[in-house]
C-alpha cells in the first residue's frame, strides 16, 4: 500500500537531515519506512534535542532540535530520514527548570539515554574498562525487532509443575572448568543445554539481564586486592535492553538475537525462562549519582522524592522508582509486555516487589494499581508473576502480597523454617507441616493455593547449599565491608567444623544434609527453586552476599560435578521423581479429608507411630503420606507416597501406615544409605522386606512409594 506520509516535511537546521513530525507512540526509536521514529516523554521539559553519534564516536555528529510543532501533549516525536540505523547511537538533551526542592534537575549539558532504548552500548564487553571521559556513557541504539521464531511459543507450563533453576548468566559458565566455547554468556548457557536436560529442571530463572553497569561503584577490595564490581546487576541502566556484556555477540551489538535464540532453544527443550526484573530503583543513585537518563528527562516523574526533593531509599540503593506514577507504571507495563511478546519470556520474578505497592509518597497501598494492572494485563495473561515480597524499607509481605490470584511469592518463611528443622531445631514439626503442603497458613486464607508459594532453601542471596552445611556464620571479608554486609540470619549449621574440612565424618554428614534438604524441597507442594551449582555442592567459601565478586567466589565450579557426582545424581533422581508424581504437584491446598473414597485423606501425618505425628515442642521428626488417588485434586492417578524425616542425631524407627492389600511399600530414597543405594531411578524402587516399620537413620530423610 502506498502511504502519503512517507516524505520529509522539514530539514534540520544543519541542513543534513530530513525530518517530519513523528508518532508519539510507541515511545523510543522505531524503524519506519525511510527512517526512524523517535519519541520521548517529558512533563516538565521546555525543549528537547535529539543527539546522534556515529558508533563509538566521542563527539556527536548531529544535534537535531525537535521543532515545537512536533510536540503532542508531553511527548516529543520526530521521524529522521535516511539514518544508518545500524551504526547510529542516539540520546537526548532536555532543557527545563533546575529546582531540586521542587524535584526538577534538568541539565542541558547532559546527553541522556532513551528510557525505552532496546539496545544499549557503552559496556559492550564485560569488564572492559570504560572511558570515563566519554560524555555519553550509556548510549541508546536502534534495534531490529524482527526475529524468526518459527513456531516457538511460551510454554505455559502450570506453575506448580515447574522446577526452577536460578542462575547468574555470567557465573553459570564463566569458570574455566565450564568447558564452553563462550564462557560467561547467553551462548554459554546454550552450550550447557544438554546438561540442563540431564538434570531435568524445567525452567531457568535468570538473575538480572537488563542493561546494567558492572563498574557502578567499582572499587578494589582492601582484603583480597581484587576489583569489586556490581556483579549481580540489581541496578538497571535500561529496562528494555538485554545486558550487552552477557552476550558473546555484544561486541557486534547482536545481544538481542543471542538472547532470543537462547529462549527459542530452551523452549524447544521444554525449558521455560523467567527473568529477574528490578523495577524498584535505577543505577542513577541518589543526589550524588550520575545522569544516565531518567533524572534528566523528568526526575519528578520517575522517582519517589521526599517533600524537599531528596530521593527516598526504600531499595537500599539510593533511589526508588516511582512505580505507581501513571507514566512509570505504563513504562513498566510496556517493558514487561515487550519481554513477553518480543522475547517469548515465560515469566518474571520481581526484585523487592513490595516497593511496587508503595504510593507516590512511599506509603504501602492496599490495592496498588501497578500490581493490579500486571495481574490483569492481557499480554501478560499467561506469564508467571513472582514477587520477592519484601523491600529494604521494612515492608515484609510474605503471605500478604496483593495477588488477585495471579501472583506467586518467593516464600522466605519456607527457607527459614526448613533450615531450622534441618539443623535440628526442636519443635519445628508444626511449621514444617505448613511448609510441606504449600504453606496454607500463609496462602490459604485468600484461596491462593500452593501455586502461590515458590519454595526454596537457597537462592543467589545468601549461602549456597554447600555453604549452608559448612558454615555457621557468614564470611564476607572479601567484600571489603568488615564482614558487616549480608544477612546474619542464616539458620545454617557447619556439621562440626567451620569451612572446608578433611574429616570424612563431617563431609559425610554434609552430603547427607544436602540430600535431606533437596529431598524435602522436592516433595513439598508449591514450586521448587534450586540455585545453580547446588546440585554438585558449589561453594562461595562462606560468602553469603557475593554481589560484588566477579571471580571464583561466585562462578560455578564445574570441576565439583566430578567430585560430588553423588550429590548431582541425588538431585537428578529427586527431580525425575517429582516430575513423575503428580501427587507432589497440586495447585490447590489439601482438604485433609478423603473425597475420593480411597480410604485415605489427601494428606495424613505420621511419626514414629503411624497416624501419630509428634507436634510437641521437642519434635525433631515428622512423616506424612500423600494419597495417590487425590493427585491434582483427584484429576490424576498416582502412587501413594510416604516421607519420613528424622532430624534427631539418633536413628528412629518409623511405623509405616498400612497400605491396601494389593500394594506394598518400595523405597525410592534413603539419605542415610551409602550411594548409589541412597536413591533409585524412577520405576526401579526397591521393595521393603519389612512392610510395617522403617528404621530411619540419624538426620535422614526416607521417601517411599506404595504401589
Amino acid at each position, binding site marked *: 500500500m502506498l502511504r502519503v506520509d512517507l516524505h520529509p516535511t522539514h530539514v534540520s537546521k544543519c541542513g543534513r537531515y530530513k525530518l517530519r513530525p513523528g508518532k508519539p507512540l510507541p515511545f523510543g526509536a522505531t524503524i519506519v519506512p525511510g527512517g526512524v521514529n523517535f519519541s520521548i516523554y517529558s512533563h516538565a521539559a521546555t525543549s528537547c534535542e535529539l543527539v546522534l553519534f556515529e558508533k563509538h564516536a566521542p563527539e556527536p555528529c548531529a544535534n537535531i532540535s525537535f521543532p515545537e510543532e512536533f510536540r503532542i501533549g508531553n511527548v516529543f516525536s520526530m521521524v529522521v530520514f535516511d539514518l544508518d540505523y545500524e551504526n547510529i547511537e542516539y540520546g537526548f538533551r532536555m532543557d527545563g527548570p533546575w529546582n531540586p526542592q521542587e524535584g526538577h534537575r534538568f541539565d542541558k549539558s547532559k546527553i541522556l539515554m532513551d528510557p525505552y532504548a532496546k539496545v544499549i552500548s557503552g559496556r559492550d564487553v564485560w569488564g572492559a574498562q570504560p572511558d570515563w571521559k566519554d560524555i555519553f556513557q550509556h548510549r541508546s541504539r536502534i534495534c531490529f525487532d524482527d526475529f524468526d521464531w518459527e513456531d516457538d511459543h511460551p510454554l505455559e507450563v502450570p506453575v506448580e509443575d515447574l522446577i526452577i533453576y536460578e542462575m547468574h548468566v555470567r557465573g553459570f559458565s564463566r569458570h574455566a572448568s565450564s568447558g564452553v566455547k563462550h564462557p560467561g554468556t547467553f551462548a554459554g548457557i546454550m552450550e550447557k543445554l*544438554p546438561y540442563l*536436560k540431564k538434570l531435568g529442571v524445567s525452567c531457568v530463572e535468570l538473575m538480572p539481564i537488563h542493561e546494567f553497569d558492572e563498574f557502578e561503584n567499582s572499587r578494589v577490595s582492601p582484603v583480597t586486592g581484587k576489583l569489586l564490581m556490581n556483579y549481580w546487576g540489581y541496578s538497571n541502566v535500561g529496562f528494555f535492553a538485554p545486558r550487552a556484556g552477557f552476550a558473546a555477540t555484544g561486541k557486534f551489538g547482536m545481544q538481542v538475537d543471542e538472547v532470543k535464540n537462547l529462549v527459542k532453544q530452551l523452549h524447544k527443550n521444554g525449558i521455560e525462562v523467567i527473568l529477574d526484573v528490578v523495577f524498584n530503583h535505577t543505577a542513577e543513585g541518589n543526589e550524588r549519582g550520575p545522569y544516565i537518563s531518567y533524572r534528566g528527562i523528568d526526575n519528578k516523574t520517575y522517582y519517589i522524592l521526599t517533600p524537599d526533593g531528596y530521593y527516598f531509599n526504600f531499595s537500599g540503593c539510593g533511589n526508588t522508582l516511582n512505580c505507581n506514577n501513571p507514566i512509570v507504571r505504563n513504562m513498566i507495563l510496556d517493558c514487561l509486555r515487550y519481554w513477553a511478546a518480543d522475547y517469548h519470556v515465560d515469566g518474571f520474578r520481581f526484585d523487592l516487589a513490595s516497593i511496587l505497592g508503595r504510593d507516590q509518597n512511599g506509603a504501602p497501598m492496599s490495592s496498588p494499581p501497578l500490581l493490579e494492572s500486571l495481574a490483569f494485563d492481557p499480554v501478560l495473561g499467561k506469564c508467571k508473576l513472582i514477587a520477592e515480597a519484601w523491600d529494604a524499607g521494612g515492608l515484609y509481605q510474605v503471605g500478604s502480597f496483593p495477588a488477585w490470584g495471579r501472583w506467586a511469592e518467593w516464600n522466605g518463611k519456607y527457607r527459614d523454617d526448613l533450615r531450622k528443622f534441618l539443623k535440628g531445631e526442636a519443635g519445628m514439626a508444626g511449621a514444617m507441616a505448613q511448609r510441606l503442603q504449600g504453606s496454607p497458613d500463609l496462602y490459604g486464607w485468600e484461596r491462593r493455593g500452593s501455586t502461590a508459594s515458590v519454595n526454596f532453601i537457597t537462592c543467589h542471596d545468601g549461602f549456597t547449599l554447600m555453604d549452608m552445611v559448612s558454615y555457621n556464620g557468614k564470611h564476607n571479608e572479601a567484600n571489603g565491608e568488615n564482614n558487616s554486609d549480608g544477612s546474619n540470619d542464616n539458620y545454617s549449621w557447619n556439621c562440626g567444623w567451620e569451612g572446608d574440612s578433611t574429616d570424612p565424618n563431617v563431609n559425610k554428614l554434609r552430603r547427607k544434609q544436602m540430600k535431606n534438604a533437596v529431598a524435602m524441597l522436592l516433595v513439598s507442594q508449591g514450586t521448587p527453586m534450586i540455585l545453580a551449582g547446588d546440585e554438585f555442592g558449589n561453594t562461595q567459601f562462606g560468602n553469603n552476599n557475593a554481589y560484588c565478586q566477579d571471580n571464583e567466589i561466585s562462578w560455578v565450579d564445574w570441576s565439583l560435578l566430578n567430585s560430588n557426582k553423588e550429590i548431582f545424581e541425588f538431585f537428578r533422581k529427586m527431580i525425575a521423581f517429582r516430575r513423575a508424581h503428580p501427587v507432589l504437584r497440586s495447585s490447590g491446598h489439601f482438604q485433609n479429608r478423603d473425597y475420593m473414597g480411597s480410604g485415605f485423606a489427601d494428606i495424613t501425618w505420621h511419626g514414629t507411630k503411624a497416624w501419630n505425628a509428634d507436634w510437641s515442642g521437642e519434635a525433631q521428626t515428622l512423616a506424612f503420606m500423600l494419597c495417590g488417588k487425590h493427585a491434582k485434586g483427584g484429576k490424576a492417578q498416582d502412587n501413594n507416597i510416604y516421607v519420613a524425616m528424622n532430624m534427631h542425631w539418633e536413628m528412629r524407627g518409623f511405623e509405616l501406615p498400612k497400605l491396601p492389600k494389593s500394594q506394598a511399600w518400595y523405597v525410592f530414597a534413603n539419605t542415610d544409605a551409602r550411594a548409589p543405594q541412597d536413591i533409585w531411578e524412577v520405576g526401579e524402587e526397591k521393595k521393603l522386606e519389612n512392610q510395617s516399620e522403617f528404621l530411619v537413620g540419624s538426620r535422614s530423610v526416607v521417601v517411599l512409594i506404595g504401589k
Partner: protein
Amino acid sequence: MSQLTLPAKLENLDSMIKFIMDEADALGFDKKNKFHIRLSAEEILVNIINYAYPKNTGDIRITLNPKEKESLEIEIVDWGFAFNPLLREEPKTCLPLEEREIGGLGVFLTRKVMDDVRYRRDGDCNIMTLTKKIAP
C-alpha cells in the same frame, strides 16, 4: 528417559554425543561397547546433519531410554525428508581401496556394532532406534 533437541548442525555434534555417552557411562558399558555406541550415534547423527535437511536445517531430537543392567535404547528423530538409511546398498568392502566409493560405511558399521537398528517413518519425521545391550 531423557531427551535433548538441538539444531542439526555439525557444531552441535559434540553436545549430542556427550549427552548420549554420559548415559552410557552411567549404565556401566565397557570401553569397547562405549566405542560402538559412540560410533553408531555419530554415524546416524552425521547422516542427518549432512543429508536430512538439504535446503535449510531443522532439529534433531534424541531420546534415551536406559534400562538398568539391560540395555540402552537411543531414539533419533529428524523432520527432514523421508529417508531410510537402512535401505542403502551395503558398501562393497571387498573392492580394492582405490576403487571404493567414499561413503556408505557409516550405516554399515552401525548395523554391525549395535544389537538392534530400526527405522520408521512417522508422520513427517524419520525415527531411527538404536539399541545396545549390556553384556551379562
